[in-house]
């Protein structure tokens, strides 16, 4: 089974939300992912994602090395059930597939230092500053 063959590369810990409250982003410290063997796909797995059922959310993920610029990893989007739906949607795992551009940057570089993974919630271009949401942890995985 393809899914059963998924290999977890690194478990990342939630370490920081400080200074990010204004943008309502979640920040994780991560080891640098290694490039997956072609044609495998590099994925960022969001563990225990929880978002309100009455909100449509697009989560954009970025990677930021200690010294260097942010780069876009990919995104995950889910519609809301209804504007009046109560409660939260709890997802054991949501996956973000790394864009070809991000994968190429990994293949070209040799960075091994930890980096930040930043998750930002949007609806289209609009940042969702008031969204009450959480992610338990993130992991890199190759399929």
């Amino acid at each position, binding site marked *: 089974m393809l*899914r059963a063959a998924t290999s977890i590369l690194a478990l990342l810990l939630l370490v920081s939300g400080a200074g990010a409250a204004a943008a309502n982003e979640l920040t994780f410290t991560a080891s640098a992912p290694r490039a997956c063997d072609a044609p495998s796909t590099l994925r960022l797995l969001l563990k225990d994602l929880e978002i309100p059922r009455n909100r*449509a959310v697009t989560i954009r993920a970025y990677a930021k090395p200690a010294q260097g610029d942010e780069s876009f990893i990919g995104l995950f989007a*889910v*519609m809301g059930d*209804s504007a*009046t739906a*109560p409660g939260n949607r709890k*997802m054991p795992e949501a996956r973000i*597939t790394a864009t070809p551009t991000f994968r190429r940057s990994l293949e070209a570089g040799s960075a091994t230092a930890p980096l930040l993974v930043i998750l930002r919630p949007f609806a289209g271009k609009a940042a969702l500053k008031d969204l009450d949401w959480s992610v338990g942890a993130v992991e890199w995985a190759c399929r």
Partner: protein
Amino acid sequence: MDRKDREESRRHFLAAIGADAAALLVPAALVRPAFGQVCAPPGNTSNPTPWGRDCRSIQPRRPASTLTGSEITKLKAAYKAMRDLATSDPSDPRGFVHQTHIHCHNCGGGGSSIQVHFGDRFLPWHRAYLYFHERILGALIGDMNFRLPYWDWENPAHRTMPSAYTSPNNSTNPLSNSLRSMGPGDTLDPTDGQPATALSETNFADFSPELEGSPHGSIHNAVGGDMSFFDTAAKDPIFYAHHANVDKLWSDWTKADASHTAPTTAAWLNQTQGFFDENKKWRTIRNADVVDHEAKLRYIYAGRTWEFVTWLCLRDWVLVDRLQLLDTSRIQLSPAGRQKLLPLIGKSETRLRLISPQLPQDRSASYFLYYDERDAKANRGPESSSYLGSVSVVLMSKDNAQKMGQPRKLDFDIKGKLKGLTDRSAEFSFFLVEKTQKGPNAAVSKLPVRGVEVLRGQEA
């Protein structure tokens, strides 16, 4: 794959795209209270008619941004008629409100336990939904060649909403929606409409959820308003152009590689979806029926993968009667056979099939075929009531040393000629006349056959 593997695969499939763990174990209706609108289909849906065949001509769905002025007018007229129907007859399942409820009801809305997202029904269900929606729109404007447009948001030049849906941006435009977050002229974030990662997947179980999350979900969220929620998304007409593009990407992915196939399990292929058609008839359609949208649903996608393909209609032909052969050139319609044919007059597609006709092979020539000798001698072609059609013989070589084989059968459309045929009480023959022969005394020859059948087209 054994049962355990299948369940494991399904569990991973659902988990990967974010379905609730609870939803895997118990019906959603038991774990969630009803919310939002009541959106169950109207009337009795317990006795469905299976979808049959579609024999319309194949027409392209085209990018919404490339529609001509008259095509936009037609698109707006179709949605206006659908909206008007919702007002004039709220119980009509073809009205716009009921059309939007179809999506709501199949997405857990109003307490429904059905959810076509987050699983392997996502693509086939939406394809079937758009198909019946499109047929209804076409019927409402009297044009069954009408096809939905698609919003090709992955095209950098088309990141604004197609102007037909925003101009004018008020209630006088049946394609507008006042609740959108995305205004006229606003552009999508380039990352919202990127299908590259989905298209790079190599199997359906990965491709479908990847496409569903993004760009499908991210475009819904970017448009905002009704489009943001499962229960209201279809209230925005851009929904159908958006999903036509999602459907096109499935089509593109399928064409990109021979290994890119839909699931082949009987369970998936036989899974059925229910919709009202343009005649208000409740239809069920299987996943297997929607996989080949070109041959079966009669549309293709214009644009990057444009291919103009002419397909033969895949209608089934059912034997109605075998005519009596007195000898190879003398045919008679029996009284019982006549009784079988009479109900078909003016109603059904009908064919006359000649089994193993013995065509002349002495030279290359084109012939007209009649079933009345006097008409044959007059040789007025299609103007004659007993004219059946034409047939050509082309020899293998000029010296005719190598004889060509005879055809096993020849079929002729006799829909408009059935009454003339049933009126004949006496025996008759088939007569060949060279096209170049002039009446009123053209040279005719009888065409021997080994059987004659009348067939009717199986209605879709």
